[in-house]
């Protein structure tokens, strides 16, 4: 069974500062990894995904993440955040052998960007 740990429940940053949201996963099989964003009163939107290949993946809105197999991590980064990036961010994992049907989510990290 897979599990996801998001190490920070809340991350406050100032506008234009860099940010890193941390995610570690546990799995006995090879995985797909995802970051989703949830704005208030909205559903989840896929930011980026790692399926295979290059360990550095780029997503929408200037976000990127790096898959580190030895550290079982998939941290999300953005070099300069905007007020509009204020949202909740979820890391998720699925079994790459069985497909992406069963997503296991972390508890989320609330990013607050202050002016």
């Amino acid at each position, binding site marked *: 069974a897979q599990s996801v740990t998001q190490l920070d429940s809340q991350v406050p940053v100032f506008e234009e500062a860099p940010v890193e949201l941390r995610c570690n996963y546990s799995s006995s099989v090879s995985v797909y990894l995802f970051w989703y964003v949830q704005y208030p*009163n909205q559903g989840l939107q896929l930011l980026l995904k790692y399926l295979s290949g290059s360990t550095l993946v780029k997503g929408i809105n200037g976000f990127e993440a790096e898959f580190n197999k030895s550290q079982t991590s998939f941290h999300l980064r953005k070099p300069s955040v905007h007020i509009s990036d204020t949202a909740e961010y979820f890391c998720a994992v699925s079994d790459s052998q069985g497909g992406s049907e069963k997503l296991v989510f972390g508890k989320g990290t609330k990013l607050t960007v202050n002016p």
Partner: protein
Amino acid sequence: EAGVVQSPRYKIIEKKQPVAFWCNPISGHNTLYWYLQNLGQGPELLIRYENEEAVDDSQLPKDRFSAERLKGVDSTLKIQPAELGDSAVYLCASSLMFGAGAYNEQFFGPGTRLTVL
């Protein structure tokens, strides 16, 4: 193209009452998911349908929860009777499944926020 549609967006009921949520997936998507999102938590899968068939309902509390997707398109999730602990957001998602082992992106609806008093 319309996204995943859910209704109602908000529902307030008293405990022991029944409640139902409706989801219309993206046109052509054969796989539909219902997730439960408690406050401060990530979504947890309740049930997954491939067409009309519920292929994973292992996390659905079957004593009070039921779901159906009769024609393989839209779906209804029901709780009867509701308990205080059922207060949460119920998310629906859909995907177009090409085959086992392939990546099939899930698209999420806005959710229904249930409050049980």
